[in-house]
């Protein structure tokens, strides 16, 4: 997708005036990035899906309160983080049960890949915020240099540099998986 924040802003304004298709476009553009952001924080796919869904619903009903329409993505992530924090306590016990069930149900291939996937998830969570945002926007929101730059408030050239540094930092954290 090549649409940038100007389009995001326009979509938010359209959605505010009741255009559901505009909101649908916003959801389909940012849902995976928001979900992975939450997953990197919680490590729980199911709960991350729930809060992602509910964050978009809350966003829709409170869209009028968004001061900077171009920052829609980070605003939704903020809502998702709040929802997640609120629910963390009430589902803590349930999580323990689910985690053990998950382990029982994992297949052989999952066992091969899970360790690395988990390491990547943890490594992304530990990255500096602008590195993490740039990576998630790039890989999951399918945004490119200019659009990412406008969201982060930097030039397109700086985005390439941030992505380089983010990849270096990530590779460093994944050193254990480097071939010998």
């Amino acid at each position: 997708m090549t649409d940038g924040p100007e389009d995001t802003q326009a979509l938010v304004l359209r959605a505010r005036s009741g255009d559901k298709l505009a909101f649908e476009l916003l959801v389909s553009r940012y849902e995976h990035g928001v979900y992975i952001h939450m997953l990197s924080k919680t490590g729980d796919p199911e709960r991350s899906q729930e809060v992602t869904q509910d964050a978009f619903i809350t966003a829709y009903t409170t869209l009028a309160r968004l001061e900077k329409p171009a920052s829609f993505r980070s605003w939704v992530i903020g809502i998702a983080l709040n929802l997640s924090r609120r629910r963390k306590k009430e589902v803590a016990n349930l999580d323990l049960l689910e985690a053990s069930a998950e382990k029982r149900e994992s297949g052989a291939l999952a066992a091969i890949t899970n360790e690395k996937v988990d390491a990547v998830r943890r490594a992304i969570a530990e990255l500096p915020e602008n590195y993490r945002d740039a990576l998630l926007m790039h890989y999951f929101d399918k945004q490119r240099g200019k659009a990412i730059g406008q969201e982060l408030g930097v030039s397109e050239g700086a985005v390439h540099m941030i992505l380089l540094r983010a990849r270096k930092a990530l590779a460093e954290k994944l050193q254990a998986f480097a071939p010998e």
Partner: protein
Amino acid sequence: MSGREELELLSSRFFDGDLTAQENARLEAALAADPELRELHADLMRAHQGVAMLASAHPLPQDFTRRILAALDQDTAAQAGTGPGAVIHQLPKRHWTTLIAAAAAVVLAIGLVFGASYLSENPPTVAPPVAKGGEKPVIGPEVVQDTRPRAEVVALSSGAMRLTDGAGATSQQTSVTGQVILPATVQAPADAHVLVRVGGGTAIVPPGATVRLSDVDADGVPNLESVDGDLYLESGDKQVSTRVNNVRLSLRRGGMTLRRTENGVVAEPSFGFASIGSSQVSFRQSALINGDTFEVSPCPNPVLDDWAVEGRLDAIKLQLRDVLGAEYPKFEQTLGKSLESMLRGILANPSEAATNSRMLHFFVKHGWLDDRPESERQAMRNIADIIGQGTTDADVPVPVRQLFAQLEEELKKNPDAIRDFARMMREALERRGDHHRKRGG
């Protein structure tokens, strides 16, 4: 910016896929000459592949956006200010582990049938799952120099379907594979679905309904037409055409339900690209076809009918029944229900169906079942085909495709890896077998 920094940036941008030919050439030359840059490039690749793996391990369900919008509709309709907590139940209750884990689970579950020593110490000797068709029509006498059009047809049902070919010959059987003289009709039994595949299209015919196989548009590619009852039609990469009265419908990489109502035939695309007459229609729309006219209207909450999924499930069960023979009822009692429930979820989601189908093909191709009879390998391939009906490689998420490519590379370097995997799989199967034995299965 120094020359070194520029090269590092090129190395990073390489993974964005947006280097010009000139930049690519410059990077290649630098990589060939500079071991440190090669090391950095390998590091960046590790990071890139790690994120790609995360994406493949944690995709969102394909209908996630639709679920959010449906939940929004409910929320708006309620107008009760119940807050976001009220819609949590919109999400599926089953665990969403990962696409890959799901695929591995299907391999495990289906693998129980093929490698399940717990069912029988001596696996049944099985006949080929479907009869091989040759030049001779599958029914009726062979007429020398018969010029009537024929088509290669696969039809599967868990009951006896009625096949009538263009020469008027009829038969009742559970599976048909081979040449059929057109135009032909297939009538599903009263209590079972039929899966029919012809000319790049696949139809699920619900119990009691009839489908016609004919070359409607005389382009040499046979079509599937609803004659009586409802019909679910799917296409892969090739465009598949059908018609209702004189209204032409076509489908590419998608699915469409044709439902007969008092007011006419309702056509509802469930995914992919569809056109009705000269109008493009999406999965959020439906068309009411009455006589030779039609009207397109919004269809906000399209749901794939259960029978469209059940038909494929029946066809899979038929393959399993052929493999297990007398042991099938025991399998159905122990694992049948959990496999069914897993398959239902997978069949209703093109992305999962495509991934699982290719995963099964992948394992068979790499010798996972090499110690089993060819008939079982063929049954596994048939099951993979049925699961993947109507999907194409494009339905497999890009990161998953990348993972397959990586696995292929790994296997080239280490052909024994598949044996290790088979061993792990077998151990997992045995553990599950023990588990089910303990539960009295």
